[in-house]
Every structure is written in C-alpha cells, then in structure tokens.
C-alpha cells in the first residue's frame, strides 16, 4: 500500500482528501489526515463576531465529520517531518511513514512577535479578531467602547485574508454609526504598505470608501512595539499613535514544525513551485493552502482553486507523468464594505482586481469591484456553500483559472 499523509485538516487539507479519496484506487492508497484537534472553524465568520452578527458557537464543527469515510483522521500535534526518511513524528512519539506528504497546516497570528502587544493591555484595549477567542473578546470590548481613538493595524504582510482588516474597518464604522457613537470615535487604518489600497485600479475606484467615511490612513507604518504604559503604537521611524482601542492583525506565521523540520522560510512557509505546489528540493512533499509561500492571498478561496489544480497534478505525479496543470493564483473574495453591502473581487498572480460582472461575463449578477447588496447576500450565503459543497469536494461551476471575459481594464 502507498501512504498519502496530509498534515492539517482545515480548508485545504479537507478538500484535498475528499477529492483524492474519490480518485485514488482504495486498494493501492491509504489516506491519513493529522490535526491537533477536532474543531474545524469557519474562519471567515470571525469577522462577523465582534459586531454580534455571528454566534461564535455556530462557527465550529467537527473536523472528522467533514472528512470522507475511509480516510483515517488522527488527532495529534506534529513534532517534526523527517524528509530523508519519509516519516512524520507526532507529539506523542508515534511515527507515520508516507509516500507522498501534503503540508496544509495553514498560518496563524503571532501577537507575541511584536514587543508589548501581549503585555498589560492585551485583551483589554489591545485586541485581534483572527481567532475565535479574540473575536469574541473584541465583541465585548466594542460593546463597551463609547468614545476615543480606534486603530485598526496590520503588522506585516503576508496575512491571512488580507482584505479582512479593511472589512473590519468598514463594518466597525457602520456599526458605530448605527449606535450613534460615530462622532465620538476617531478611526485610523494603520498599514505597513503605501496605502489601504495598493493596486492602481482598486485604489482609484475604492479610495473614496475611506474618505467618505472619514477614516484616516497611516501608511508605511513599520511597527516596532506597543507602549502599554502610554497606550501608543510606536513605529521604527518615530511615529507614536495613541489609542483607546487597538485592533491589531499580528504577524502571521506558518506552523512551527515546518521550521523545525527545515522545510520553511523565515516565516515557516514552505517554499513551493507556484504552479504545482511541489516543495522546492523535494518530489514527495507538497504544500497547499496558507502553508506555502505562493505569492497570492492566504485565503480559502485560493486554497479551493489551488486544490482543483493540485488534484489533477497529483494524479499525474504518482503515475510518473509530468505535472501539466498550472495554477494561475486565482482568488475570488467578497469584501464587506458596511451598511449591508459588499464588493466582489476576482484576480490572479498577474491580473489585479478589475471592474466587470461575475460569474457570467457581462451579465453578472454580481458586480466586480463595486459595492452592492447582492454581493453582501452572496457573502451571507457562503457558509452553506462552504460546509456543503466546498469541503466535501463537490464541483462548483467556477473555473479554477481566472477568466478575463466580462472584465474591463480602465484606460
């Protein structure tokens, strides 16, 4: 028997095993998934929690229940991958051998990488919303937040779901306005990049969303530390931003075992070929989802399109054929803009988000790169699709590669 070992039973890992389970000959291949726990979180839902729009208890389901019968699910921490011996050692000392290994252990926020963040103000006036616990505590903090200065801050790229900080800012602005507190709250968006929007067309078409809402932007802010005595965010170039409530997006890093195993870069992401996801220097290790270093957004949407391509390539690879299916970096995301509206963006490695209609060219019904209620409803409907269509590996009528049809490039 051949062993396919998948580390991580999240969005990417679950889709991979459910799709490959249908395609691999069961008398030839065993499939095993390892995860540290049995709680699969619908992570896009975290964004709604601080505003009371999602019940934290309803965002989590059992991991193994999402995984096809016939796939073995093991609950354990991964200690180390020994690539020379084709073995993975688990936290309890168990050793699992593999013929093909897929690393799909994602990325996670590391607030302790920035001095002062997890100090005296942590979870009091310094919050994050990239964990269910953090989003729930932020909900309580927002409820108490009557007036003062709100900083929404990104530490460093890349981060998981890179539009979420903007979405949080828009949702917070509209939430505060609905409660009559907006005039008493100053909102500042703090980014290490040169603007809230950095792509020319998105920047031109969406820049007004921040201006209209009187959200100021602090750009090129490279954070050095949080001063928890003064309650300020300090940058390397000497800027000091006072806050009453700091919502920070901490540095994101891949799993620690990736670093321990010598398979990662400085942030524990596995360097891979961006078309095939084969780890550089290996022919039996792949990295999918947020765990790899591919230059596109760390998002479930990317994982979904990437898995479609990966499955075909993997079947070629184990049959000794060259991998001819190339991933183009396709991503497709709803972006909440507040007041019950959302934007939709569709892009890839080479093409920035453009205006147009989606999914049917010229018809829609969704509008790309502009606000609409329908886009918001699309985002609201998405959890059902996630649990019932995407994770089980059922086909959805969207091509894995991006289409230029129905998009227009402004002159």
């Amino acid at each position: 028997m051949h062993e396919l070992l998948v580390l991580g039973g999240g969005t990417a890992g679950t889709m991979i095993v459910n799709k490959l389970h249908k395609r691999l000959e069961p008398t030839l291949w065993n499939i095993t998934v390892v995860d540290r726990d049995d709680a699969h979180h619908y992570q896009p839902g975290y964004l709604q929690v601080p505003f009371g729009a999602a019940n934290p208890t309803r965002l989590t389901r059992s991991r193994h229940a999402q995984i096809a019968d016939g796939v073995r699910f093991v609950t354990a921490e991964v200690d180390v991958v020994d690539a020379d011996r084709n073995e993975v050692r688990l936290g309890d000392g168990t050793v699992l051998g593999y013929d093909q290994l897929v690393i799909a252990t994602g990325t996670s926020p590391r607030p302790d990488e920035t001095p002062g963040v997890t100090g005296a103000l942590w979870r009091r006036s310094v919050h994050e919303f990239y964990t269910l616990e953090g989003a729930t505590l932020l909900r309580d903090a927002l409820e108490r937040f009557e007036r003062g200065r709100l900083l929404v801050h990104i530490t460093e790229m890349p981060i998981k779901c890179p539009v979420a900080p903007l979405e949080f800012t828009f949702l917070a602005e509209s939430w505060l306005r609905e409660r009559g507190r907006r005039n008493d709250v100053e909102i500042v968006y703090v980014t290490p990049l040169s603007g809230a929007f950095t792509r020319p067309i998105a920047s031109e078409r969406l820049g007004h969303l921040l201006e209209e809402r009187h959200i100021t932007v602090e750009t090129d802010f490279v954070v050095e530390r949080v001063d928890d005595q003064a309650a300020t965010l300090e940058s390397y170039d000497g800027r000091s931003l006072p806050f009453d409530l700091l919502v920070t997006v901490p540095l994101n890093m891949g799993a620690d075992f990736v670093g321990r195993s010598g398979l990662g870069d400085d942030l524990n992401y596995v360097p891979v070929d961006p078309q095939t996801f084969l780890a550089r220097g290996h022919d039996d290790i792949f990295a999918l989802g947020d765990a790899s270093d591919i230059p596109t957004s760390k998002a479930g949407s990317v994982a979904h399109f990437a898995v479609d391509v990966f499955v075909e390539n993997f079947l070629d690879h184990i049959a000794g054929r060259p991998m001819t299916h190339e991933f183009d970096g396709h991503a497709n995301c709803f972006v909440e803009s507040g007041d019950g509206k959302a934007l939709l963006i569709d892009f890839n490695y080479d093409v920035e988000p453009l205006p147009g209609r989606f999914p049917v060219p010229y018809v829609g019904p969704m509008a790309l790169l502009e606000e609409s209620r329908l886009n918001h409803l699309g985002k609201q409907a998405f959890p059902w699709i996630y649990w019932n269509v995407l994770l089980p590996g059922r086909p959805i009528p969207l091509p894995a590669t991006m289409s230029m049809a129905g998009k227009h490039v402004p002159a």
Partner: protein
Amino acid sequence: MSTTTIGGHTLTVDQEGFLTDRSEWSEEVATALAEQIGVTLESEHWTVLSFLRAEHAQTGETPTLRRVSTGLEIPVKHLFELFPVKPAKKMAYVAGLPKPRGCV
C-alpha cells in the same frame, strides 16, 4: 506604463516611477535610481539590493522589511538608516522591483 529617462537610461516605469521590466535594471540604473531619492549606494546597500532581487526572482514577490532584516541579519532600524523614510518602498524602487503590495 510609460517611459522615462534617468541618468541617461531609458526605463519603462509605472505611475509611481517603479521599473516594470526587470531586465532593464543594472547596477548603473540602480545608482541612478538611488540618486533620484537622495541615496548614495555603498556596500551595505548593494547587499540589500542583491538580496531583494534574488528573493523576487525566486518567490515572485518583493520581500518585506522583516524578511530582509531576518535574511541578512540587519536590524530593521539600520534599514531605516540605509534607506531613510519608507525603506520598504525605497529599497524596491532602487532594486527595480514592484513596491510591496496587498491584493487590492
């Protein structure tokens, strides 16, 4: 896209003056670009520039300040001294790479 002439070199650039064709970059071009932003290139600058170009060639992305700092074991504070004010953007500009960016 448009073309511009800097230090006698004709270069294809985007709206903000960043090179869009990596093959047009050379050490002479880098020196001319650095002059535009008031930086005189010395050996430490060149170390940073070669790191940026090598990383971009491998990953397809301009490395972040943190990555340059850990990769070369240069404190972030010192990168601010080498390329004062907005070092991430300035390093990319001189290295002939896109500025660090998000997805929108």
